[in-house]
């Protein structure tokens, strides 16, 4: 990382002489002001609000479509959508399943791709760094912003799905994928686990986005690039001849969250998924840090 991050309070410039130095900066090490400002920027931006509205619309559409489609085929085919008629919780799950391949990655890519490139593009990056904001701190705050947005987006889909699901279909015993019936409370708990797993997967994806964002001054370019990566990864994952590389694809374990809906929970794929996410996350955060720390800010 840049030498700027290596400085310690010991190098503090003394406050004497011809210069009338301010009283030493009261170091508010744990201040969350900058993070809160970042969140305000993310959640206050019209583009992002519109994106979240789209994310939230999907479970609503699913709920109404299933409720009023008329043709009820019973639970025989085992799909989430048909399960919705048994219990409202499944609307949330169905919405997450539908949005995970494209909509959610798109949302995370929009925020993470914009993180550094967006500031560089409008020129605010140089003013943030000159305030000064340490480069490591800037990346940390930007990534925390991405994480919080990811949690918010996933929970938004789940909560809206469950809300509309319960309103239209009511609560009742939940039939898990393994056929076991559990109470609504246990079902909710399982749904929460699913949300957590999806957040972990998307957090790694967000780290990739953050890295790409440090490479360019074009936020849209970064976003498109990262979404393209997710799509290509899923396409490769569907080509059986390439099964040798499948475990290494960043999206490979995303849909394994279904294992959390068995009784008992099948931890095999899930734990692989978590390891994969952690490895991807660490590698790309480190790459972003190395890249951004040494970068000339000429925007």
């Amino acid at each position, binding site marked *: 990382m840049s030498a700027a991050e290596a*400085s310690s309070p010991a190098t503090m410039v003394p406050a*004497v*002489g011809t210069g009338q*130095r*301010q009283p030493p*900066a009261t170091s508010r090490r744990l*201040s969350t002001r900058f993070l809160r400002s970042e969140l305000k920027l993310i959640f206050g931006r019209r583009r992002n609000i519109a994106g979240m509205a789209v994310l939230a619309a999907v479970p609503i559409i699913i709920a109404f479509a299933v409720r009023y489609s008329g043709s009820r085929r019973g639970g025989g085919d085992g799909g989430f959508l048909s399960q919705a008629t048994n219990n409202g919780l499944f609307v949330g799950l169905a919405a997450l399943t539908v949005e995970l391949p494209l909509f959610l990655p798109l949302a995370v890519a929009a925020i993470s791709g914009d993180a550094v490139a967006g500031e560089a593009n409008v020129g605010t990056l140089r003013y943030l760094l000159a305030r000064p*904001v340490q480069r490591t701190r800037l990346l940390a705050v930007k990534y925390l912003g991405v994480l919080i947005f990811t949690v918010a987006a996933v929970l938004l889909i789940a909560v809206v799905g469950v809300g509309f699901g319960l309103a239209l279909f009511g609560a009742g015993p939940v039939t898990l994928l393994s056929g076991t019936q559990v109470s609504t409370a246990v079902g909710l708990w399982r749904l929460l686990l699913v949300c957590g797993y999806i957040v972990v997967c998307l957090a790694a994806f967000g780290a990739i986005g953050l890295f790409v964002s440090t490479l360019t001054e074009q936020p849209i370019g970064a976003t498109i690039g990262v979404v393209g990566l997710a799509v290509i990864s899923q396409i490769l994952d569907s080509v059986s001849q390439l099964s040798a590389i499948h475990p290494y694809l960043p999206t490979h374990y995303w849909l394994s969250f279904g294992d959390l809906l068995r009784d008992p929970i099948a931890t095999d794929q899930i734990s692989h998924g978590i390891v994969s996410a952690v490895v991807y996350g660490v590698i790309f955060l480190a790459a972003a840090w190395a890249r951004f720390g040494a970068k000339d800010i000429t925007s």
Partner: protein
Amino acid sequence: MSSPVTSVTRDAPTEPVPSSAVAGSSAYQFAVTSNGLTKRFRGGQVAVDHIDLAVPHGAVYGFLGPNGSGKTTTIRMLLGLVRPTAGTSTLLGGRIPEDSQQVLPSVGALVEGPAFHPYLSGRDNLRRLDAADRTADPATCAHRIAAALERVGLSAAAAKRFRNYSLGMRQRLGIAAALLQPRELLVLDEPTNGLDPQGTREVRALVTDLAATGVTVLLSTHLLSEVEQICTHVGVMHIGKLVAQSRLTDLRAQTAQRIRVQTAQPDRAAATLARLGLADIARRGEEVTALVGSARPEDVIAGLVHDEVPVIAFGPVPVNLEDVFVTLTGEGFGVSG
């Protein structure tokens, strides 16, 4: 260059420069210094070529140079945004980039024009910058923002989105951001860009006011008149090199003094001046000018009277800094590639 003025580069800072006086010592005499500061961009172009800046504490330092001469690149290096290819620099006695976290809170900067989030209001943009500053006291944030906006005459437009600001309003907001906290050093890259004459005057008055309170100002510009009006020191950039650096008064004193004679008979006046040994005699209409050289003006007047030249007016030619810079840069103020 053979001109006598070039010597200012070496003689320039009144005291010998810095490197030892700065790091680790208890005081800083120079708010900004650099030592062999160089930037070669990846394309191979040397944008800044071994410059040794010395901006004395309390100075208003005009960093003058034509387009593309390397002013902004230098400022970016001073603020730690761009890594020098070679050389070192200090701000307020702290090394850059090692001590930037300690010194930069006391430095207000405007770099290559203002830049803000277009969909946030002016006030919200300042709030964001203040939130990023760990040394800023959140309790006084609103008050400081209001004061800074007031100072640049932007209070009425504080709630407007930045994207709807005019060019001059944007520039003012950039200056307000530099003034959010009490600073010891202001680094202003072309602060009057895009301002109307009124705004230009206001900004110049603002700089003068701040300087009067002891703030050091490093002001980059390509306007000679700006330097002449508000600066105490000047550094001249030309194709990446610092070709001159000096007090403004010293620079003026170094330029060869000319006298001018206004007369109905310029031919006779020119002949007299030649007889008195003045060099570089030039005639333009009824005016004759010449280098004074070692002659004393009173002797020149006596000679003109003696030769019965009908003198209408006599006096020194005002020192034209532009001529100085043309001499220094060889070609004046074109774009340097």
